[in-house]
């Protein structure tokens, strides 16, 4: 890995995830442009990947750490908002009606059915994959083809506003040491609930922030529960059984 002494400190950080592989900065752009669903980005892996690629002694390590912590926390906020429709609806200004239990039950039932239908579709797609059509098609007779002009203008908008990834072949591959913080938290949880303060006692600011991000991600996955008895009071990580 090479470091640029100034400019964008994370420009050389690349990530390898199932949903995306390439420069981290472009991952952020894709998420912000809604071209990649934040829903599908495993934040824990992202944090692990950063920690694995981190070089303590690099000249701009502080700047890099700060930038990463900043953008990672923004992603967490974005993801939690996506997962929480209540906030979404509020932000969009609509749907502030309170649902009666019957309505809520109706909605959940509807969603459950759609969920099941989605599972059925997944099976159908999987069992029908691999049917490729004939390539021996004859060109249609001139004049029979209709092109919708609004699709052409839509395509113009799409093609001309698309951000194109810069070539990254000159960047060396990053070897990711896996899930440092997440496994550290898991190990700590083996001894029962642990307070966030104790867990992060010996950490610097950045590590504390990243540990929090990892804890949130583990909570989302269902590995642990975050308990905070009083608002702004001490935070406890509890293993979920």
């Amino acid at each position, binding site marked *: 890995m090479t470091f640029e002494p100034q400019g964008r400190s994370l420009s050389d950080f690349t990530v390898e995830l199932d949903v995306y592989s390439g420069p981290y900065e472009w991952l952020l752009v894709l998420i912000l442009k809604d071209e990649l669903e934040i829903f599908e980005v495993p934040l824990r892996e992202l944090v692990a990947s950063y920690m694995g690629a981190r070089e303590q002694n690099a000249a701009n390590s502080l700047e890099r750490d700060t930038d990463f912590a900043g953008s990672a926390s923004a992603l967490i906020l974005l993801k939690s908002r996506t997962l929480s429709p209540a906030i*979404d609806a509020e932000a969009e200004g609509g749907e502030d009606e309170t649902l009666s*239990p019957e309505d809520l039950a109706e909605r959940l*039932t509807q969603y459950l059915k759609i969920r099941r239908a989605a599972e*059925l579709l997944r099976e*159908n797609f999987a069992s029908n994959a691999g049917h490729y059509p004939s390539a021996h098609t004859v060109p249609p007779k001139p004049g029979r083809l209709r092109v919708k002009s609004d699709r052409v203008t839509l395509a113009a908008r799409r093609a001309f506003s698309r951000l194109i990834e810069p070539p990254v072949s000159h960047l060396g591959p990053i070897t990711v040491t896996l899930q440092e913080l997440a496994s550290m938290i898991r190990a700590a949880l083996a001894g029962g609930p642990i307070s966030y303060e104790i867990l992060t006692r010996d950490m610097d600011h950045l590590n504390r922030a990243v540990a929090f991000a990892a804890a949130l991600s583990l909570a989302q996955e269902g590995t642990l529960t975050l308990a905070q008895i009083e608002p702004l009071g001490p935070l406890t990580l509890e293993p979920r059984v």
Partner: protein
Amino acid sequence: MKPSPENLIEAVLLVSPGPINLPDLSSATGLSRDEMETALEALTERYAPETSGIVLRNVAGGYQLTTNPACAGAVERFREEARPAPLSNAAHEVLACALYLGPLTRGAVSRVRGVNSDAVVRALIERGLLAEVGTDHEAPGSPALLGVTDEFLAATGSSSTDDFPPLGSLVTPEELSRVHERLAS
């Protein structure tokens, strides 16, 4: 040689980019409905997935020759293309909404799923599985209505949307009562 009905149908199927419905097949080949049905039965056997590398499928309201998925590896190597990545959970949910509740607007999809679904809808339109099939003139701003496409039917191996089991049958009464219980508690 005087071509048989099977021959004529085979030849037309080879040059068709998508599934051909019976009226189009009849008008190209000049065969009667009965002749076509007999010939298609014979061809279904000739191009059966158990014995042939090319298979005859009855999808999206028509007939189509495609490669046998058992040979997909060789085909993908030849085309130097990997199989497209499988769809996400979110994408399957959006398609399920369009299939069972559609045509419906983007807003309606998002309401059913509880999260904004616009990006997923856009990706599915790109892949040709979803399309804007009309306009909801009642709603403010006359938003577009989304429906599944013939390509969706072909990709799921269905002849029509009627091939799918009714939505109500996908959830058991026990599951439904669990939902109500959880809400009551």
